[in-house]
């Protein structure tokens, strides 16, 4: 990662205004969003939106032509701009042809994308942003830090300083007063402006309509008072039919700000009368800027289903820590990373794509049903393909791909880390490795890995068999979890097989964009795990389970290795996560939980892959309750703990505050034990409590069930 990028992340993390405002907002947003969607079937609504937008993305040229024809028939001027330069020179020419001196603008991300203000100012126009947040940003000479709330990183004191300078009067930081200052300062600009510029939230091909969504009322003034209206609209805002407007308008305000509807929605279809009775000079600029190329890419086409609500920013556990400025461009957050890679260049996303921890929270709420984490993974893959991997990373992965070497290294590590071990933890590492144990201890590598211990376990004779995929953490750090799993399945009459040839599931390589490495891991594991006849392939790590269950297939698919997909599917068909399997065995009467026990309070942490990939988050809760635990839900139980595999090693400065938040939420429940289904989360959270010197028991669900099952 670039040092400049690392330092911008550092300064964002230390900006208390920013993290405070974003943190508070993100907590309130989740609750308010849920309330706004209370009476609505969100899944059904977003399926309609995704369907309509996807149709538009595959028919962009046709819709642009229809839109143009319809709008022109009503008297509007329509210009399709392929590049930012074309858009800017067209708008500047309109301004110059009409002797425009002053321009008022309502919010438009597309105008920021092409740096329209600078072009108009260079052409002699005075441009005023009129959205309050945008005006603040313009006065401060900054870039918006959030797509919907551009000035969320600024305090009222900073705003009061800016406004005081602008109106040449010493103002207090009273917010209603500041808002009124903005109203009074901008009102004469609206009344005097020769041109109003707006964006467009939706453009309807069937009718030639532009839909504008605002809360402040500035778009109504900008489209009513000046005699010229220019709407700059990205072509991804096109929809085919007027009926498509309703679902987008139903979702946009709810997802953006948790409002049922914004204060104002204006649907403008052709020129309207000016205040002097003349018809409006209406120019609509349809901006392409590589959107058509995106539409032609079968994987990235879906990014055009974005309705710019910014909910992917609002639910992102990283965004709320670092804000938008670290993204370095106009579009920020998850979707911003993807748009930047296209509107600027793939290379421009090199650093920012690394911010994504792949927790999947954004994918759950996206009203356009865009697989944002999946597309960021695809960016990673293309970056690695185009530029290769950093040398050290490459060296590590080539070792991971050589199982004997990899396992040998892990064993050597268990001896090498002895001087740093205290109990079962590594609390401090020397020199450049120090940040790895900042706020979190690492588990000591087990003296004897599970693969060796397994050979000593005597199993009873059983009717059924299951293959156990341990994954690196259980194998080398938590072998006792593997032993517990064997005990549990033996009780159900299932013999556990452990094929020695199994290796890393490939997730670390895949999450770093090293798909070739991940594919080799997949090939090796498929061969190892399918070599024995068994009813199940079970894993107690949701990341590994997700790899076996679906990602092997995706990796082969991405690399075009279709001949290997059938094998991947055969493995997926047998793969099951630990808690789902155990719940099934309990329900079938093969396992019995001791009855009538009151085991006290436990809180449950949702691991990202268990909840959002495998959707198996209820099974462990039901099992724990059945065992006699009182499951007390924590605040943000499904927010990522900051582990993210190698993420916590690459960006420990972000991982640490995510963990701190998680620890606090766990402690706030008052439960003495926190359960989870992922050994990676166990590693992160146990390490966090160790370093914080708190005595909360951090247990894998299987450890708790091991104690609760009858013989």
């Amino acid at each position: 990662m670039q040092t400049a990028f690392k330092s911008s992340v550092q300064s964002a993390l230390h900006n208390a205004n920013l993290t405070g405002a974003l943190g508070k907002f993100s907590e309130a947003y989740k609750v308010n969003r849920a309330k706004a969607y209370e009476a609505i079937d969100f899944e059904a609504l977003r399926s309609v939106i995704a369907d309509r937008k996807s149709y538009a993305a595959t028919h962009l040229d046709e819709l642009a032509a229809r839109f143009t024809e319809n709008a022109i028939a009503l008297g509007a001027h329509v210009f399709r701009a392929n590049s930012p330069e074309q858009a800017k020179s067209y708008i500047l020419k309109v301004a110059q042809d009409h002797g425009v001196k002053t321009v008022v603008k309502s919010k438009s991300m597309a105008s920021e994308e092409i740096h329209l203000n600078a072009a108009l100012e260079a052409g002699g126009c005075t441009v005023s942003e009129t959205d309050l947040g945008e005006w603040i940003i313009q006065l401060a000479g900054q870039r918006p830090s959030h797509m919907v709330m551009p000035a969320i990183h600024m305090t009222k004191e900073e705003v009061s300083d800016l406004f005081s300078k602008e109106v040449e009067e010493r103002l207090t930081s009273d917010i209603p007063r500041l808002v009124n200052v903005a109203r009074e300062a901008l009102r004469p600009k609206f009344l005097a402006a020769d041109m109003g510029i707006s964006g467009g939230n939706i453009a309807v091909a069937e009718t030639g309509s532009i839909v504008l969504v605002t809360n402040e009322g500035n778009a109504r003034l900008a489209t009513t008072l000046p005699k010229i209206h220019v709407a700059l609209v990205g072509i991804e805002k096109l929809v085919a039919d007027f009926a498509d407007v309703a679902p987008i308008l139903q979702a946009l305000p709810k997802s953006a700000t948790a409002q049922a509807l914004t204060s104002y929605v204006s649907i403008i279809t052709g020129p309207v009368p000016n205040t002097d009775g003349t018809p409006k000079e209406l120019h609509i600029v349809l901006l392409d800027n590589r959107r058509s190329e995106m539409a032609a890419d079968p994987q990235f086409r879906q990014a055009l289903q974005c309705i710019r609500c910014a909910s992917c920013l609002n639910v992102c556990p990283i965004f709320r820590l670092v804000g938008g400025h670290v993204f370095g461009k106009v579009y920020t957050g998850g979707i911003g990373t993807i748009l930047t890679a296209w509107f600027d260049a793939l290379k421009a996303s090199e650093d920012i794509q690394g911010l994504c921890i792949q927790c999947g929270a954004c994918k759950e709420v996206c009203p356009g049903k865009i697989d944002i984490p999946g597309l960021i993974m695809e960016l990673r893959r293309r970056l690695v393909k185009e530029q290769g991997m950093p040398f050290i990373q490459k060296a590590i992965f080539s070792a991971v791909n050589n199982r004997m070497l990899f396992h040998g290294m892990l064993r050597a590590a268990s001896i090498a880390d002895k001087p740093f071990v205290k109990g079962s933890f590594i609390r401090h590492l020397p020199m450049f490795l120090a940040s790895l144990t900042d706020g979190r201890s690492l588990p000591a590598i087990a003296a004897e890995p599970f693969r060796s211990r397994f050979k000593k376990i005597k199993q009873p004779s059983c009717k059924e068999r299951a293959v156990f995929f341990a994954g690196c953490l259980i194998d080398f750090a938590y072998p006792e979890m593997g032993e517990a799993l064997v005990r549990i399945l033996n009780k159900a009459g299932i013999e556990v097989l452990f094929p020695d040839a199994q290796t890393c599931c490939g997730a670390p390589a895949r999450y770093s964009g090293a798909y070739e490495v991940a594919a080799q891991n997949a090939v090796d594991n498929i061969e190892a795990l399918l070599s024995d006849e068994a009813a199940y392939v079970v894993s107690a790590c949701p990341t590994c389970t997700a790899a076996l269950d679906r990602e092997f297939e995706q990796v082969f698919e991405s690399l075009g290795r279709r001949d290997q997909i059938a094998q991947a599917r055969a493995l997926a068909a047998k793969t099951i996560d630990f808690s789902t399997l155990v719940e099934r065995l309990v329900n079938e009467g093969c396992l019995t939980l001791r009855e009538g026990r009151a085991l006290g309070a436990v809180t449950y942490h949702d691991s990202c892959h268990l909840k959002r990939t495998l959707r198996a988050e209820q099974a462990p809760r039901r099992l724990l309750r059945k065992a006699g635990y009182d499951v007390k839900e924590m605040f943000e139980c499904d927010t990522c703990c900051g582990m993210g595999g190698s993420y916590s090693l690459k960006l420990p400065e972000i991982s640490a505050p995510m963990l701190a938040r998680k620890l606090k939420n766990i402690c706030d429940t008052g439960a003495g034990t926190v359960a989870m289904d992922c050994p990676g989360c166990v590693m992160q959270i146990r390490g966090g409590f160790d370093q914080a010197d708190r005595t909360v028991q951090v247990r894998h669900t299987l450890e708790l069930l091991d104690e609760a099952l009858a013989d």
Partner: protein
Amino acid sequence: MFDTFKAAAETAKAEVWRFHTTEAAVSFLAGFLSENGVADAPQATALCAGGDWLSPEIRSRLAAVPGVRFGVTREGAAEAKFGISFMEWALADTGTLAQDATPVERRLVSSLVKIHIAFVPAAGLLPDLPSLLKRVNPKKAAYLALITGPSRTADIERVLTIGVHGPERLIILVIDDLPPPP
């Protein structure tokens, strides 16, 4: 449907009243304007857009209130405190008002003033946005305006503040005897 509408509109910080007759609504309005300082002076006038939904008698009663004017100009709207307009539809689920705002005076009296008062026929109540969009043809209503509560912002420290560029109050008068929109 009215109760749903009222609750949703009030959540959006609009003020909702219901009257059986236009006459009763206008009496209420005359009182409201006086209480809130209407006067024939700058920054205190009340500007009424159109007014064809009022019968001549009722219209002249309203015109008799000092400060109430019927001819809408850009300059007049810029210095008016109150704006009065007719809005054809009300959407129950979001508490939204909708009108064909192509005539510019309708936009002026609802966007530049401090207090916007909207006359809405009870017969124009619709359940939701899709039912409105099925009913209107945008090619015949060039500027379709939807209004939900007063103008608002939360751009400074996420603190909700009412009345930025548009009205800081929205008074909705739902009236039973007004004819349904076409």
